């Protein structure tokens, strides 16, 4: 589950539908990304990061568990 993306979206006061429209994707796609059930392309990741004023690291980077 990508909680960072969900938090960043809520922080920006955007619904899934609004974010989807900003990045020209469907609400379902945003929902699936937040649930960790769809791996978006780098192009879509960049659009999402730019729309939420975050870096790719802040939204999508995951620390490896040793």
């Amino acid at each position, binding site marked *: 589950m990508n909680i960072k993306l969900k938090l960043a979206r809520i922080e920006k006061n955007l619904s899934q539908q609004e974010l989807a429209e900003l990045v*020209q*994707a*469907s609400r*379902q*796609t945003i929902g699936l990304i937040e649930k960790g059930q*769809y791996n*978006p*392309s780098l*192009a*879509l990741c960049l659009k999402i990061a730019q729309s939420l004023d975050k870096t790719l690291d802040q939204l999508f980077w995951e620390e490896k568990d040793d």
Partner: protein
Amino acid sequence: MTKSPFPMDERTRVIIMRVCTIMYVLTLMALLIDILYRQFVLGQSPDSFNDIAMIYTFNVIILIGAILYFGGVPFLKIRLKPVLALFIVMTVSGTVFTIIKYRLTDPLSIINKFGIIIAIITIFFLIWITAAFFGKRNMEKIL
């Protein structure tokens, strides 16, 4: 900007492509089953389904050629052994299939067909090698 009646994003496009690929492979398999069923179960003459066999053959040639072209396979790094093994497997299976298909018993006609099969499979490989060569060249240009 007008809105499309079917709004598509990258995920839906990927799903559509995946479904199309699966359906394409299923269609090819169905064609093959159809050819074998007509030949060996219904006992129809091979001439009555030559059109299906042609469609199937051209599809497979173009499919492999397109994969080699658009994949930009490193042409000079292709290992010769598996390619030769594939050539032999295709020749042997093609010959066995032809012997059964045309019920050949005469050794002369079998040798004759064997020559034709080798020539056809060589043409297949030449098409694929050409596709791989131009695909590699195209990829180098892009890079």
